[in-house]
C-alpha cells in the first residue's frame, strides 16, 4: 500500500534523528547568491515555510545542493529549463481545502462544508535543472561584514520583541510564571552566535505565553510528551529564525536525550512533526511581526531578499 504523506515525511525525519542528525539544521556552507544562509526559496523568490523548510534542507544536505531554489517540473519548463534525465524530485506539501455542498442530516437543507487536506507535490533543486536563466545558478560574492556587524541586526530583532531577559547562572530557560527569559551571561558562551542561537530558542518558548500565541501542549515535566513537543517547537522555530537572521544554530549539549524524547513523540503520532513545524512557523512569524516597519537596513535587506521575487512571475 502506498504510504500517505504524513507517513513518508515522518519516516524520513525519524530515520534522520535515529542517525543522530537533526534534519532542521540546514547545510550552513551554502554559497549561492540568494544568501549564505537562507530558507529554501520557490522559483519566484518566495521562501517556503513550516515543514517544507527542513524537508528541503534535509534534501539539500543529503544531495549536496548549494543553491536554495526549488521549482516544479512545469515551472522549470515555463522558465525555459528542463529537469535533467534521471533526476529524482523532492516531496513538499501544501495545505488546502475543498468546499462541498451536502444535505444537512437534520434539516435536509444544503450546507457548505469546508474540508481541509494536505497534498504533496514534487520539486527539483535548480542544480537538477538545465538551461534556466543564469541568475538561478549565481554564486555568492565574498562576505563583506565582520561578525560584529552581522550580529547587530539580531540584537535589534530581539530588542524589538520586548521580551524580559534576566542574566545570571549557567542555564538558559523561559519561566512562564514570571514571563521571563533567564540567560547565562554573554561571556559564558563560546561565541556570539551560540549566545544568540540559545536566546532565539528561549524567545520561541517566550511566544507560548497566553498573551501571545497561547501555546500549550499539556504536561510540562521533563521527559513527558508535552515537554518534548514544546522543545521541538522551540528547536525548529530557532532554526527558522537563525536562517532568517543569518546565524549558525548551536547543537545543545543535551543532544542525545532530546533526540530520544522527540523520537518517541514522532513514533507515537505521525502528524506531530507537522504540528510542531506549524507552531514553530507561527512563532517565527509572530516575532517577525513585532519588528518595526523599517527595520535595521542590514536585517531589512536580508528579509526583503527572502520576500522579493527573483524574477517576475510568469503571467
Amino acid at each position, binding site marked *: 500500500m502506498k504510504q500517505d504523506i504524513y507517513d513518508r515525511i515522518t519516516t524520513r525525519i525519524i530515520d534522520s534523528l535515529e542517525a543522530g542528525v537533526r534534519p532542521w539544521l540546514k547545510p550552513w556552507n551554502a554559497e549561492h547568491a540568494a544568501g549564505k544562509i537562507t530558507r529554501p526559496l520557490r522559483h519566484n523568490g518566495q521562501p517556503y515555510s513550516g515543514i517544507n523548510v527542513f524537508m528541503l534542507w534535509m534534501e539539500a544536505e543529503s544531495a549536496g545542493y548549494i543553491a536554495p531554489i526549488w521549482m*516544479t*517540473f*512545469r*515551472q522549470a*519548463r*515555463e522558465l525555459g529549463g528542463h*529537469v535533467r534525465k534521471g533526476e529524482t*524530485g523532492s516531496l513538499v506539501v*501544501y495545505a*488546502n*481545502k475543498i468546499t462541498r455542498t451536502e444535505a444537512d442530516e437534520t434539516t435536509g437543507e444544503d450546507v457548505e462544508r469546508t474540508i481541509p487536506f494536505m*497534498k*504533496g*507535490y*514534487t520539486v*527539483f533543486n535548480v542544480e537538477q535543472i538545465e538551461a534556466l536563466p543564469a541568475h538561478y545558478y549565481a554564486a555568492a560574492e565574498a562576505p563583506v561584514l565582520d561578525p560584529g556587524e552581522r550580529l547587530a541586526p539580531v540584537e535589534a530583532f530581539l530588542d524589538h520583541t520586548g521580551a524580559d531577559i534576566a542574566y545570571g547562572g549557567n542555564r538558559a530557560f523561559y519561566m512562564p510564571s514570571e514571563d521571563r527569559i533567564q540567560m547565562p551571561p554573554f561571556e559564558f558562551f563560546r561565541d556570539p552566535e551560540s549566545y544568540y542561537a540559545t536566546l532565539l530558542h528561549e524567545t520561541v518558548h517566550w511566544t507560548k505565553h497566553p498573551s501571545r500565541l497561547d501555546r500549550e501542549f499539556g504536561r510540562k515535566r521533563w521527559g513527558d510528551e508535552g515537554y518534548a513537543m514544546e522543545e521541538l517547537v522551540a528547536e525548529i522555530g530557532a532554526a527558522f529564525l537563525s536562517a532568517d537572521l543569518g546565524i549558525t544554530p548551536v547543537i545543545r549539549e543535551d543532544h542525545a536525550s532530546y533526540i530520544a524524547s522527540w523520537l518517541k513523540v514522532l513514533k507515537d503520532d505521525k502528524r506531530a512533526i507537522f504540528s510542531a513545524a506549524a507552531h514553530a512557523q507561527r512563532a517565527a512569524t509572530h516575532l517577525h511581526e513585532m519588528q518595526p516597519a523599517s527595520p535595521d537596513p542590514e536585517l531589512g535587506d536580508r528579509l526583503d531578499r527572502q520576500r522579493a521575487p527573483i524574477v517576475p512571475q*510568469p503571467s
Partner: protein
Amino acid sequence: MTWKIENHPKGGLQIAHLVSPRFTARWTTGEFPIEGVREGAFFWTDEGSGLDDAIHLYDFAWDYLVPDQEQLSQLMANATSEIERYIMTGA
C-alpha cells in the same frame, strides 16, 4: 483573465481558456480517469515529473477550431501550468 478553473457540471473541475482558441476541458491528476471520460476521443496528458505529478485533460469542448499541433502543445503546456498553480495555491 485568460484561464478560469471552476466546477464542471458533471462533477470535478474544468479549465476554460477564455480567449481564442477557446475551449473547456475537465482535468484531474494522478492516474488517467478512464472511467470518467464521456466526450470525444481527444485527451491530453502532461506527465510532469512522474505518475504522481501527471495532469490529464479530457472531455474537451472547442468553441471553434482546434489549433495546429505546435500551437496545441504550447496551449496544453500553458493549461497544465495554470492547473498546477491552481493546485498549489487553491486559487
